[in-house]
């Protein structure tokens, strides 16, 4: 292995190494509380929702679009699941397709407004997300809805494989799916061209409008899946559940773009980034820091991630 390929490996797995270092430091400081399997298995299970939101963001980001509505899609679909189960009494297996369709519908609205009126997706999805939150508060009367069918919790957080709640494995399966689509399909190539050279793509025969629409629908469906799992994780639907997830998901998506496949939003990088961020926060709270570390950590990580990814792409341009 020569020096430059060693450098490439360090770059690709840098964040993994930092993550392991963070685990080692907190582990040395609090071996009895931090460094336990039960602490880690609960992190892996409960943060699966954040992994899925991040994966959802990565798809439109690759095509050059932002989906700021994804966290509110999560909240809306979580509330829809909670109400239909606890208040209406529909069985959970019938609710899941309804919630997924609702998420897809949000994606269609985002895509249609962005594409037809040629408005920047940042603005469209900010508005749509806030509007969705309004609907969520209205239909729940701003109350947390509990009494969701027990089966949902069983299949999300109660059942475990190797001690880790099954929700973690759903997130990993979805990461594998996103990885496959982005790296190994023609559609993935079209997404990338749409993001990196939209006009070139259009003139070269890529149906960029359809590609962007598909990306919005995919992120809407991912938001819905995350919403269903969120309800299953807590057994209830909170009308403000998604609000605190948007920034962490963006931080993880940009941080994830600095590793595994540096310079590209990618699935496994996102997974690593989510677990790096939540490990850091978990460790700091074990040490006794209060909730303000969330904002410090996530906000700081987003800014640092954007700076690093800018450096990475700048150097690529110079050396390649």
């Amino acid at each position, binding site marked *: 292995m020569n020096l430059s390929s060693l450098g490439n490996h360090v770059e690709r797995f840098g964040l993994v190494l930092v993550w392991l270092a963070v685990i080692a430091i907190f582990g040395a400081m609090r071996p009895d509380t931090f460094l336990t399997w039960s602490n880690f298995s609960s992190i892996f299970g409960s943060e699966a929702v954040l992994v899925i939101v991040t994966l959802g963001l990565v798809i439109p980001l690759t095509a050059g679009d932002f989906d700021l509505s994804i966290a509110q899609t999560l909240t809306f679909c979580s509330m829809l699941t909670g109400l239909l189960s606890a208040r209406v009494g529909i069985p959970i297996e019938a609710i899941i397709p309804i919630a997924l369709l609702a998420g897809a519908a949000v994606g269609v609205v985002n895509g249609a407004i962005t594409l037809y009126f040629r408005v920047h997706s940042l603005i469209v999805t900010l508005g749509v997300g806030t509007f969705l939150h309004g609907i969520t508060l209205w239909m729940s009367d701003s109350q947390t809805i509990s009494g969701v069918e027990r089966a949902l919790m069983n299949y999300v957080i109660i059942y475990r494989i190797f001690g880790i709640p099954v929700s973690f494995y759903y997130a990993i399966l979805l990461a594998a799916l996103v990885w496959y689509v982005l790296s190994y399909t023609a559609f993935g190539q079209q997404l990338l061209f749409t993001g990196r050279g939209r006009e070139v*793509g259009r*003139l070269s025969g890529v149906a960029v409008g359809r590609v962007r629409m598909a990306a919005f629908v995919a992120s809407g469906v991912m938001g819905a899946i995350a919403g269903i799992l969120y309800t299953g994780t807590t057994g209830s639907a909170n009308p403000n559940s998604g609000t605190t997830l948007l920034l962490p998901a963006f931080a993880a998506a940009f941080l994830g773009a600095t590793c595994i496949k540096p310079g590209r939003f990618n699935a496994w990088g996102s997974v690593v980034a989510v677990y790096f961020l939540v490990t850091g926060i978990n460790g700091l709270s074990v040490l006794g820091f209060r909730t303000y570390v969330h904002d410090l950590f996530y906000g700081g990580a987003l800014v640092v991630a954007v700076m690093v990814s800018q450096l990475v792409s700048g150097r690529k341009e110079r050396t390649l």
Partner: protein
Amino acid sequence: MVFRMSGIVKRFGGLTALDRVDFEVAPAEVMALVGDNGAGKSTLIKTMSGAHAPDEGTIEMEGQEVRFRSPQEAWDRGIATIYQELALAGKMTVVDNIFLGREIRKPILGIPFLNRQAMRKRTGELLSQLDVHVPSIDAWVESMSGGQRQGVAIARALNMDARLIIMDEPTAALAVAEVRKVLDFITKLRAQGKSVVLISHNIQDVFEVSDRISVMRHGRCIAVRETKKTTPQEIIGLITGAHEVRAAAS
């Protein structure tokens, strides 16, 4: 004729950009398209490539009437357009650019995967066939010279099985040695039986490689000449309208 446009009209609001344009290209022919800025060359090639739909007139490709609603449909019909600035995505590799829309797949356990190995191999073949040398087929296109990019864009057109290749100012802003190379590409394409539309401001280049020359002026195609039977003076006169002045004087 491989390609024929008859009576093409394109209006933008009150402005008539193309006024009943007739244009045709024969098999294995290099047809140059010349004209001053604003004469309608860009609008005409955008109509050929499916980026604009004409308001009136017909387009025939290999004897069949076609109507392009998108650039994709033109590519599918075998018309490749190499735009000056928008032919390739700069932040993508040579391989990615050449295989956009024509990816090679290989099933693994019944699931289709992109076959990067096969695409890289084919890229090497295409580039050596055209005698294009790039630093690395995995490098971003934006790191390459204008001549190398033209080569990559032509390789892409060949990979798409294009029969008609439209080149928009391929030699503009190129170093002398690179101009030579791009003109060689064009003769190679003709030797392979491809038809080429060459849009250029450089009359010298046009006379060097073209078989015929179409001249546009004020949104109309005012003349078609065989390159061997005309002179640069005549073509420049047609472009600038000097012939109109002479005709009015006599």
